[in-house]
């Protein structure tokens, strides 16, 4: 077994056996229970969600809009909870663990620092990907069971969420090389918040047709590509909406005009590669 796989396995064990995992699982169960309740209520009385004159959206469209809103809410929650997990798994992976004396016994073993970093990334990313895919699948099932609706695109949004959480894991691991655990945790949630704000800006800019706002949002998405993948997931989940229902979805907090692109996918890969290089060089130059 290579050193990378040994470390990844160690991270997987750590993820499952630390108390933080139990807390995340508890929060997840709580979220899913509330989500079931919200879905039952929403589909039970969709007219309560009527916005504007009755004749603008028909009952079918209204049900579809309700489904999309719930799915988007589910995607948001999935990414948020997975981000919490990702940050807690990685915020102190390098500098924090070095300060606590956890890292030194491992680093002196005959494995490269690059392999150790890669192993930590692989382990944390695997846990977070399994988690977000599981949560996303649960959200899809709940909406289907309560509202009888499947989105037109299932795999695409799921992959976009996987890409988003993978980038967030890499960003948090990079931060752990240079920042203390507390500083890294704070920085990660601020960046996550900045990404969400960019998404909202993009929705507002697209609805109002304001190019400047769209440009700002686009620039932030380039700098924080997890947001680009997340908004592409939202866009794909709501792609079957038409007419006034589409407008309602788009101007809501979960609207998105970002359809994603192959070029952006490549940017995401390149972004991960840059993070890998910077983190590796930073780690190899660090005295422990």
């Amino acid at each position: 077994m290579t050193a990378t796989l040994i470390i990844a396995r160690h991270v997987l064990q750590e993820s499952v056996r630390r108390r933080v995992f139990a807390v995340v699982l508890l929060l997840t169960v709580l979220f899913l229970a509330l989500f079931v309740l919200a879905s039952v209520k929403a589909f039970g009385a969709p007219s309560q969600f009527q916005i504007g004159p009755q004749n603008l959206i028909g009952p079918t469209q209204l049900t579809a809009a309700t489904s999309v809103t719930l799915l988007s809410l589910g995607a948001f929650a999935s990414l948020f909870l997975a981000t919490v997990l990702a940050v807690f798994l990685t915020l102190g992976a390098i500098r924090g663990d070095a300060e606590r004396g956890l890292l030194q016994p491992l680093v002196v073993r005959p494995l490269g620092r690059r392999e150790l970093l890669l192993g930590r990334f692989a382990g944390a990313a695997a846990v977070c990907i399994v988690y977000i895919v599981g949560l996303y699948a649960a959200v899809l099932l709940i909406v289907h069971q309560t509202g009888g609706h499947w989105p037109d695109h299932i795999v695409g949004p799921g992959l976009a969420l996987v890409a988003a959480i993978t980038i967030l894991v890499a960003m948090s691991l990079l931060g752990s090389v240079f920042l203390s655990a507390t500083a890294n945790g704070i920085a990660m949630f601020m960046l996550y918040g900045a990404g969400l704000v960019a998404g909202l800006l993009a929705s507002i800019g697209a609805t109002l047709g304001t190019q400047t706002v769209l440009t700002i949002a686009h620039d932030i998405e380039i700098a924080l590509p997890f947001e680009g993948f997340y908004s592409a997931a939202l866009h794909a989940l709501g792609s079957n909406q038409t007419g006034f229902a589409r407008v309602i979805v788009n101007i809501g907090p979960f609207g998105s005009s970002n359809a994603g692109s192959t070029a952006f996918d490549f940017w995401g890969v390149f972004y991960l590669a840059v993070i890998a290089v910077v983190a590796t060089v930073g780690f190899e130059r660090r005295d422990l």
Partner: protein
Amino acid sequence: MDANTEIAPTALAEPAPVPEPPALAATGLGKRYGSVVALEGVSLTVAPGELVGLVGANGAGKSTLVKIACGLVRPTAGTVTICGAPAASREARRQLGYLAELFRFPGWSTASEILALHQRLAGSSGGQSERDELLELVGLSDVAGRRVEGMSKGMQQRLGIAQALVGEPKLLLLDEPTSALDPAGRRAIRALLLELRDRGIAVLINSHLLGELERVCDRVAILAHGKVVADGRPHELTQSGGVEIQTGTGTRRFPDAGREDIPRIVAGLVADGVDIYEVSVVRSTLEDAYLQVVGPE
């Protein structure tokens, strides 16, 4: 060449064995942290199977030296080799075991799991028997399945030593290994160090407990302000303080006398009718030598 020509005996002799490289060899080692000089021109050798103590005040550079040898810290000058391989290389790290001054193991893992992880990382094929032997060696056999978070600091320290011994290292670097141990634990570690030396494992040990080093080390190096200011066998570093004789009328001191002078002095005193109850050779301790070289700081 004629078939009958005798071949010179030297040509038939087996080649002379290649001398084993030192377990640790530091040459002109320097380390700066900004404007702070942690090490300057340090040269130190630990021979295979040798037990060497490293002493010095806080901030003298002891831990920095050990960390450079482990590859945790990069030197700004000089070189270190471990069993002939450059420090920080994989080959060097295959040869060493390390116990950090401040270390911790994950609280969620058990003693046995920690050793298993380090076995995998070190490429050790010792398996369960090696884990059992190491836990037995440090007196933790009964708690192999206990989580680290349920262990005392002393138990964790002993687990740290067991971890450092995974993979049969040729050089053991111990940074304050007895700091969290009670007197019984310290005695056990002293016995362990002597056993390791018997097994041919070289040990470089940092400690403030000079009395312990004096008892077990083959050699002691004293570091002050990043430099080696004294290096030698404990009895070479300490000095004779003369001879003390307890007589019926009190203690008599002979400050310039040595062990070889005792029979003559005792004979003279007895001839003078003095009752003698005890004779001892007085030597300065390693602590005295240390304070003499380093100063009280």
